[in-house]
């Protein structure tokens, strides 16, 4: 019998990830692409890549997550459009059924998720600035002229990490520059930065909460050995990095699509890989009908209006997006 697959996409601000999953929830293919501010193009590019390999196979379902989930869900015809917290939790529990705590640090935001008996019990998402996220690390690596891949390695070499203060990225950066100017070596500064990041993350997100193992660390930043070791040191516990740490959101979306369709018995709404050749346009306008001044997004495919969202009164979205607006979320 032909193998059948599920597609999961996670369109984040920094990276766009795609995952092909089989019926046994194995990941058969994963893509990690930089979004570079062009979510539609990046997603299309990803789909083209997958089409080469899976173009002929049957896709049984598709799920979308990430901050661009609405748009992505529209484009691919997703069966499930889910927020990234739930997607990460589902993915983590299928990798490690007993998982109690998930640390997730992505490009623009960071989250902590607590599970009890396999269900999400509590969660938190960073409220302050981006000092604890991937983009910030990228930026600092570039500033110190160190490839981001090697960044973590430097931290491990440090014997005496400096203390970096910083409520937000701008201040952390200025404090780092100051430390450089007073003559600290890069290793110590990077190690200090990793520790500050881990400490801020925990102070900010895990205040007063008990962090129990097993702990999973996922998201792009989990590749950074410096941060991993900082977490291990502060938590005094082992931290598991799942094999597909960087695409866990997309993986979760694929699992959710599978679960959703199995429960409902519906056929998938996935548009097929050929949809990448559709002309997909996104237009935004400020509705001037009342003082709310909602920013309404119009999506059209091959010049036919497909969906609308962003309006509060429902005037626009009720008219156009019959198929799927935000209705399947939540």
């Amino acid at each position: 019998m032909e193998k059948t697959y599920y597609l999961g996409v996670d369109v984040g601000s920094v990276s766009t990830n795609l995952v092909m999953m089989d019926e046994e929830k194995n990941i058969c293919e994963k893509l990690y692409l930089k979004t570079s501010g062009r979510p539609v193009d990046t997603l299309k590019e990803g789909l083209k890549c997958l089409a080469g390999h899976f173009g002929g196979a049957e896709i049984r379902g598709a799920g979308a997550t990430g901050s661009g989930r609405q748009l992505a869900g529209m484009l691919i015809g997703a069966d499930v459009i889910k927020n990234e917290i739930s997607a990460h939790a589902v993915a983590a529990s299928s990798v490690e059924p007993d998982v109690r705590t998930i640390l997730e640090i992505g490009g623009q935001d960071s989250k902590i998720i607590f599970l009890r008996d396999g269900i999400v019990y509590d969660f938190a998402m960073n409220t302050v600035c981006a000092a604890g996220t991937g983009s910030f690390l990228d930026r600092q690596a570039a500033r110190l002229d160190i490839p981001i891949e090697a960044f973590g390695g430097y931290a491990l070499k440090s014997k005496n990490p400096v203390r970096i203060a910083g409520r937000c990225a701008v201040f952390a950066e200025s404090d780092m520059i100051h430390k450089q100017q007073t003559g600290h070596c890069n290793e110590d500064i990077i190690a200090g930065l990793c520790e500050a990041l881990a400490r801020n993350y925990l102070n900010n997100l895990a205040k007063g909460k008990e962090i129990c193992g097993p702990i999973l660390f996922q998201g792009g930043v989990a590749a950074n050995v410096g941060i991993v070791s900082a977490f291990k040191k502060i938590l005094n516990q082992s931290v598991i990095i799942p094999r597909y740490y960087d695409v866990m959101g997309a993986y979760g979306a694929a699992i959710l699509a599978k679960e959703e369709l199995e429960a409902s018995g519906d056929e998938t709404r996935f548009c097929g890989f050929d949809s990448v050749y559709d002309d997909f346009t996104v237009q935004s306008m400020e509705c001037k009908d009342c003082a709310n001044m909602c920013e309404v997004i119009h999506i059209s495919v091959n010049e036919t209006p497909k969906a609308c969202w962003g309006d509060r009164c429902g005037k626009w979205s009720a008219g156009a997006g019959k198929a799927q607006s935000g209705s399947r979320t939540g």
Partner: protein
Amino acid sequence: MVVTFPNMGNVAIAAKTLCQGLALPYVMPETNNSKTLAVGSYYAPEEICLPFKLILGNFILAARQGADTMWITGSCGPCRFGEYCELAMRTLKKLGYRTDFVVADLSSDVGVKEFIRRIGTVAAASPVHPVEKLRALRLAYQVVELCDRLDAKAYERAGYEVHKGECRRLLHEYKTKVRKTESPEETMEVLQDYGRRLDAVPADKSKNPLNVSIIGEIFTIIDPFSNLYIEEKLMGYGVSSKRMLSPSWWVKNMIGKPFRLGSRDVYKASDPYLKYSVGGHGKECVGEAALAKAQGMDGAIQVFPLGCMPEVVAKSILPVIQEDKGIPIMTLIVDEVTGEAGYITRIEAFLDLLKGRRNQNQKASHPRAALNMRQFPSKGV
């Protein structure tokens, strides 16, 4: 004298009704929007809380349209709200507007004499007969009460509606219309009409929607713009929501408090966690969180502006209540830079969490799970 007043939920509609009844010229502020906020935060101190920025925005925009008498509610501590009038007054003066402020402080705080003097300045400007004045006041209160009830009804019924989005549409329609009415009578008519329409919304009583209680700082929870329309978002997800704090609740509670009426159950429920008042509505927030489970709520969402001191105290207590009562509580802090994407993600994830908990409870076939089902809301405004 051209009166204006800030948007504080339905208070603006009541104030408008009062002006119409007193035959005073007024400037109706636009519903809060990005422009209000932009103007307000430009002239407000950087670290002040969001409500002040919006109120200041309302005042400046109204002053540009010729308003010269600002109505604002007051309070005498310990929260910052009580200093709003002083700050707003100085800012407007700096900008070159000659304005009078009528600050509605409690008579117990500023003294009966001062209280009467302030009411007198308003009453003296109105050309209508004293009997009419009293009638206008009564109508204004009726209007705000009715508005609050309509809101509550829409928020609750959204969980049961058969045609998705109907309650939200009606809510939006009535809010738009009611701001444009020309007389108190017309306002009442619109409200009563929409009360009937909301009652007539086809409902599926077999639905068992998630129930969420909205708690926190009063301004940010009654002004939809400040909380990024959280209640309407919940309506979109088919969730029923409930909010105790509202302008009419505030009035009732103020009058009832000295007689130990008002929301006694809430205060009583807060006592084990927070014995003393911390200003603002911190005590109410704690009490409501403690009661939410017994009221059949699946969860509670606390909303407050960044830097709100009373709510920070409440926030630090909520995790204890969450454990004690077994009810999930999420805190959302809003300011002018709150990103909507992250906000929505949090709300959606929280609803997923509530659903997950409910399923788990049902699986455990907890005998009390059935008790948590709420009754379908009854009709009648």
